[in-house]
């Protein structure tokens, strides 16, 4: 939803007017463009709003990967700091802030798991390039919400065990398809087929939800 003003930030109406109501309204209405522009102006209120909107899902994703609350806190903090320091490269009009934050978060978490398990490889250094803010444009922004999460969990439950397993290995551990083939003692071609089929099923479910 496009807003006609950006009052939470530097040009707005006085916050002394019903501050609680204004706060509630604006938290719900602040869109990516307004938020990103404020981040680019390095307004700390924008970071507060970003955290309020995405802090829980970022923390949940990191925790789901690293399984350690202390490390998850550090990596969540690092995620938001990275976004703060790199927001200048983000396309405020076309960019999708949530997916970008989640990509940073998951990359940090998987990097951590890889470093602990001694699986540092060239993938790790390439993650940085693949979370560049300029890449997160022209995406569906509304994919991160409770309704879609519910749909997705339902779809995951319907996947057969092989398909569910490769999605979990990919998402939580960042295993390459070759690593999954070795872990599951399956041919690489079979793993690729499972990954494609599983993701297609999930995407179709999400797509139906978005179209509904």
């Amino acid at each position: 939803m496009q807003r006609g003003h950006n009052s939470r930030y530097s040009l707005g109406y006085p916050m002394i007017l019903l501050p609680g109501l204004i706060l509630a309204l604006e938290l719900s209405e602040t869109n990516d463009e307004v938020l990103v522009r404020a981040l680019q102006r390095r307004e700390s209120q924008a970071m507060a709003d970003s955290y309020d909107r995405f802090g829980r899902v970022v923390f949940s994703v990191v925790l789901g990967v690293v399984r350690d609350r202390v490390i998850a806190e550090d990596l969540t903090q690092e995620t938001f700091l990275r976004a703060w320091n790199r927001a200048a490269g983000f396309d405020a009009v076309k960019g999708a802030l949530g997916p970008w934050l989640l990509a940073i978060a998951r990359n940090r978490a998987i990097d951590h798991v890889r470093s602990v398990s001694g699986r540092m490889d060239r993938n790790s250094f390439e993650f940085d390039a693949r979370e560049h803010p300029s890449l997160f444009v022209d995406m569906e922004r509304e994919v991160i919400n409770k309704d879609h999460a519910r749909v997705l969990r339902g779809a995951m439950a319907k996947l057969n065990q092989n398909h569910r397993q490769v999605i979990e290995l990919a998402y939580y551990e960042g295993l390459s398809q070759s690593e999954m083939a070795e872990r599951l003692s399956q041919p690489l071609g079979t793993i690729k087929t499972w990954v494609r089929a599983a993701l297609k099923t999930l995407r179709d479910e999400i797509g139906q939800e978005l179209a509904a």
Partner: protein
Amino acid sequence: MTCEELRPEYDAYALGIAEDPERGELDAHLARRCDACSRGIAQARSTVAALSGIVESVAPPSGLRRRVLAMVAQDAPAREQKWSLPAWLPWATSVAFAVALAVVVTRPASVAPVNPDVAKLEQALSILNDPVTQDVSFGEPTARGRVFVSPSRGIVFIAAHLPKLDPGKTFQMWVIPAKGNPISAGTFVSAADASAIHLRPGPVTGAAAVAVTVEPAGGSMQPTSTPFIVTKL
């Protein structure tokens, strides 16, 4: 490879699990702004973002919000400093105290000309205060800590639970460039509680990672052991 051949790989690529040659081919297509692959990868990235829905939703601890905001408050425009001051003050104070303490612990035996502890503290705070300083945490099995890297001012390394050094050994920090050999960033030892703070002032150019190895006392020209800490920037 053609876009049609690469299309089945879009999801794996967005998920970070694709491998060469498809991964390299997709990198090349995106680098030359291939329309079909850019659209396909954007859709795949949406799918990957949506996959966050499979994760159990867990509320972060209440103090985490304050920590996140404290990290950025010092860098916010001046007009915001008045109300943000209370949030970052405790953090900055604790870091300053920790750095001051470590400077005392790790200062060299030789006598520097003028107040070296204050000079080091100022250098460390200068690095922490640089708006573009990267702050990266690490949590290896044998150590936990953070690295602050300012491209123009230097590196502050803070760690706890460091491994015990054998006699005649020292820790050595390295700046790992994207290409080329590691560059020594100085040696240090841990305090009695296995913690350490190490300062390496001066510009840091082209760093891809900061690493720490165990080396013979006095340090080495190049690492002689496998790094037990590797913190990518």
